């Protein structure tokens, strides 16, 4: 029973971190139809900035998180303007090559600037230790990650379903050309959602630094995981991404707890099985 509970908590926390990082990827992929392999690299940049701010500059955790989000957006927006803009609507192979090239560059530069060692983001004292629920003690950080994930999911749901921007975003996802013809400034929608996506990636990178340690190969190591979440969930679908994160988080964590000697074998096996059964993702719609 104890094991089941700790697996459940860890799986939930891991799934939520995955969700925070990949939801931006899912939305931009659904919106711009760009296979963005560099998304994990942005999460990594967020982690590095937070680590630098909190550890080397001694800023408070909250400031470090904010700095990481804005710093990553400031770095990412010129990349979008200069490079991504040219591959909208290009064949997949082109997009894969461009974004994997960007990933390689970021890894190389991160390694040059910060060195190959693992970076930690020191937690404030409130997030250390554990909370006693009466029958079970849970690490506060896990709860924090879960709460962050839920907050992001709720905030995004509100923004997309209830605000004017959300209406424009949904219209652009469904049919960008038609939305543009009706007076939606799609390039602004693109730019804003790209910035939000990158900001969320950075946020997830910082919050998840305990679970997904920040190091130069972060971008490559977890790239697969983020892509898997999006393709299992179906690009552009928030509920799909949420379900996919929880499912994959559960599979991965259970595998690690019960059969550590098999590593990620069952994780990838499950991914292949799910995609073979649902080639368009759990919540994917038929593409026109």
């Amino acid at each position: 029973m104890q094991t089941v509970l700790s697996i459940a908590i860890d799986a939930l926390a891991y799934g939520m971190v995955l969700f925070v990082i990949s939801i931006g990827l899912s939305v931009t992929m659904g919106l711009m139809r760009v296979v963005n392999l560099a998304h994990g690299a942005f999460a990594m940049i967020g982690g590095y900035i937070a680590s630098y701010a909190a550890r080397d500059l001694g800023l408070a955790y909250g400031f470090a998180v904010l700095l990481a989000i804005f710093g990553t957006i400031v770095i990412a927006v010129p990349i979008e303007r200069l490079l991504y803009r040219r591959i909208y609507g290009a064949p997949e192979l082109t997009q894969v090559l461009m974004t994997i090239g960007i990933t390689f560059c970021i890894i190389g530069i991160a390694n040059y600037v910060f060195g190959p060692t693992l970076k930690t983001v020191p937690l404030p004292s409130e997030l250390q230790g554990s909370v006693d629920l009466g029958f079970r003690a849970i690490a506060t950080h896990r709860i924090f990650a879960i709460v962050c994930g839920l907050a992001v999911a709720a905030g995004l749901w509100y923004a997309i379903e209830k605000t004017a921007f959300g209406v424009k975003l949904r219209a652009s996802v469904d049919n960008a050309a038609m939305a543009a013809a009706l007076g939606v400034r799609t390039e602004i929608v693109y730019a804003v959602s790209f910035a939000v996506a990158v900001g969320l990636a950075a946020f997830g990178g910082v919050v998840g630094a305990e679970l997904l340690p920040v190091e130069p190969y972060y971008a490559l190591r977890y790239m697969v995981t983020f892509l898997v979440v999006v393709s299992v969930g179906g690009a552009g679908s928030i509920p799909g991404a949420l379900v996919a994160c929880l499912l994959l988080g559960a599979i991965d964590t259970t595998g690690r707890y019960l059969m550590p000697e098999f590593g990620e074998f069952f994780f990838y096996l499950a991914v292949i099985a799910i995609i073979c059964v649902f080639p368009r993702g759990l919540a994917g719609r038929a593409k026109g």
Partner: protein
Amino acid sequence: MTMTTTNDMIAASPARRRFGGGDLIGLAIILLVAVIGYFLFPNNLALLTRIIAAALLVLSLDLVTGYCGVATLGHAALFGAGAYAAGIASAHYGINDPLAMLAFGIVAGAVAGLVCGVVILRAHGLPQLVLSIALIHLFHEFANKASSWTGGSDGLSGIAPTALLGLYEFDLWGRTAYVFGVVLLAIVFLLLRLIVRSPFGMLCRGIKEDPVRIRSMGASPKIALTKMYVISGAVAGVGGALNAISTQVVGLDSLSFNMSAESLVMLVLGGTGSLFGALTGTVVFMFFEDVVSAANPFHWLTMVGALLIAVVLFAPKGLYGTAAALVARRREAK
């Protein structure tokens, strides 16, 4: 499409008979480069043999990516299967004849190609890409776990190929391995030239352009692509077996995501959809890698990234494709 293939130009050129001038010229160029390499780097034949093995992998990737339009980041699975099969045949079963090891590599590569093809071709677009990545990780984890067979992360050692045809020992300098590799590459190159211009090859190219139309013409895209995947697996298996025979060790890196990504980079650098492009890309990339990564492996990664971005932005047809387009344009101008 920005990633146009160089096929269009080759198909439009006059040399397209069964064994056209292009084949003989290509063969002559391969042999010439091989001889030049032999005399320029007599002490580094191991590197040249590695380039040939990589070239076989890139050719095999070109078959599915360049000719069939399947974007995959897991192609090293086929290469690794060939390498491990050849290695295991030698290290565990005492089958040390290089040609028999090669046969094992080809069969294993083809089987891996069949498995990968069946799985990868189930989806399109992003899910397809993710499937290919998941497959290469699955292969990697499996080889890592089955360490009694594969040696796990220590690598598979104890491969001891006997003399080739009973005449030529695999010497310390790697001369036999190099000549063996060059001959294999030449044979594979000629066979592939035949295949890609056969009706079957044309069918695959048609599927890449418009699968719906091919289906309405009565052909099954899936069966054709699966066949191509098996052929591609056999070619990658030749490369893997060559690698196992020449280095006499098989490591987990031959089943890695990095290797898959690098082979894709090599292919794109040279130009997709052309066998010459695949060869050009491999040679240029491997030479640069040898020079730069000796200095600093991380700068190497940054440079590969920058190179990729540059190729996508400025030379989407790759080195060979761009050069071929220039030549074709000049010829037209005359």
